[in-house]
């Protein structure tokens, strides 16, 4: 039987393409607040380990998480400092290694406490079902000249969790935000920094806004 390419099939294909365009460009984000500390050596020094525990304050609806009945908790561990270096008059610290784990937990009992590690931190941030786990491929902290605030940014490879391949395929995972030390922030005793940032999932495939005419033109 000879297959024919009918106008109806063409329209269906075009509709599918047009509907797919926004999905490729979608960025899914999870906003979080938390605190971090270092252990294993002098603060910021090479070999010191950075640990962060945080909770989500906003999650994109696509994830289907209701923050009114469950919490998303974050646990970052194993980031090893390469030591501070100069960055155009500011300070930069690159880290190697590191794992990010995000848990979906109906207990809603996350508690930083004081002087971590303690009875609740990081323990209460590692409960529930695994939402995402990723291995850092890069992580950097930037400090202003005073050393009291700055930003951090990192990229990850997703390795496990309920959202892997559930939201987009061929995804890029990023972790970034701002931090502040105890000056000006209510940082619990024993913690080093307060962090406020976003975990983002972005399609690796670039996307462009396209008109209906331009999509049709692809098939002319």
């Amino acid at each position: 039987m000879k297959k024919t390419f009918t106008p109806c099939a063409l329209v269906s294909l075009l509709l599918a393409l047009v509907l797919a365009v926004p999905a490729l460009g979608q960025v899914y984000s999870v906003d979080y607040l938390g605190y971090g500390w270092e252990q294993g050596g002098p603060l910021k020094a090479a070999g010191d380990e950075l640990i962060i525990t945080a909770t989500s304050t906003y999650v994109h609806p696509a994830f289907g998480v209701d923050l009114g009945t469950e919490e998303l908790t974050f646990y970052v561990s194993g980031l090893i400092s390469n030591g501070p270096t100069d960055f155009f008059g500011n300070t930069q610290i690159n880290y190697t290694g590191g794992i990010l784990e995000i848990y979906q937990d109906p207990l809603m009992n996350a508690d930083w406490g004081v002087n971590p590690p303690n009875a609740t931190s990081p323990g209460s941030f590692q409960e529930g079902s695994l939402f995402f786990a990723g291995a850092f491929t890069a992580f950097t902290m930037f400090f202003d000249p005073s050393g009291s605030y700055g930003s951090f940014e990192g990229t990850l490879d997703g390795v496990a969790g309920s959202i892997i391949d559930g939201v987009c395929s061929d995804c890029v995972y990023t972790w970034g935000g701002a931090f502040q030390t105890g000056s000006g922030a209510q940082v619990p005793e024993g913690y080093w920094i307060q962090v406020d940032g976003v975990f983002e999932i972005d399609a690796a495939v670039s996307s462009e806004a396209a008109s209906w005419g331009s999509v049709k033109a692809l098939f002319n």
Partner: protein
Amino acid sequence: MKNAIKGMLIVLAVVALPLSATAQQLFDFNGQAIVPAAVGGTLSMYSVMYDPAPQTTPLPLDFDNFEYTLVVSGAILDVNGNPQSYVGGVLTIYEDAGTAADFANTATFTDGTAILVGSFTSLNRIVFLSTGSVQGYLDWNGGAWLNDIAPEDQTGWAFLAGTNSRSPEPGYSEIWDGKVEPPTIIVDEDLSSFGSVKALFK
């Protein structure tokens, strides 16, 4: 009867103590900023606020029934280095049960009731790569809820935001994700023994 009332008051007082636990207090926001290109230009930022649970907001906000927006306006670029330094600037928090905030229409962020208005005493912005930070301090001096904050607690609030310029909304320069925070918890809290609570009613 008198003893019964005393007992009830004591129980209420004791029960109330855990509510003033040591949760950090802050206003959390996520928004879009328009950054000036040259000295003398004006910075503005429009954002939506979120419930920071398990941390708490410094004043109780009803996120179920209202939308809260946080807007920075009128900050003038004074020193265009890295960091940049701004002078002036006002931060306003609005409570609105009407129009949903839409970055395509900044008026949707400034409708409703201005519940808190503050003036920046300092504001600095630094850019590292595509990300950066904004840090400053402000004093509250207006708004419908100003008197809900004790005068001694109205000054020295910290403003901090992480910035990135990778994919802002059309018409904006950067995404800002940050918080506004009092220097200390502004609700009084005292650790009290049961005996000292009872003594209050003798």
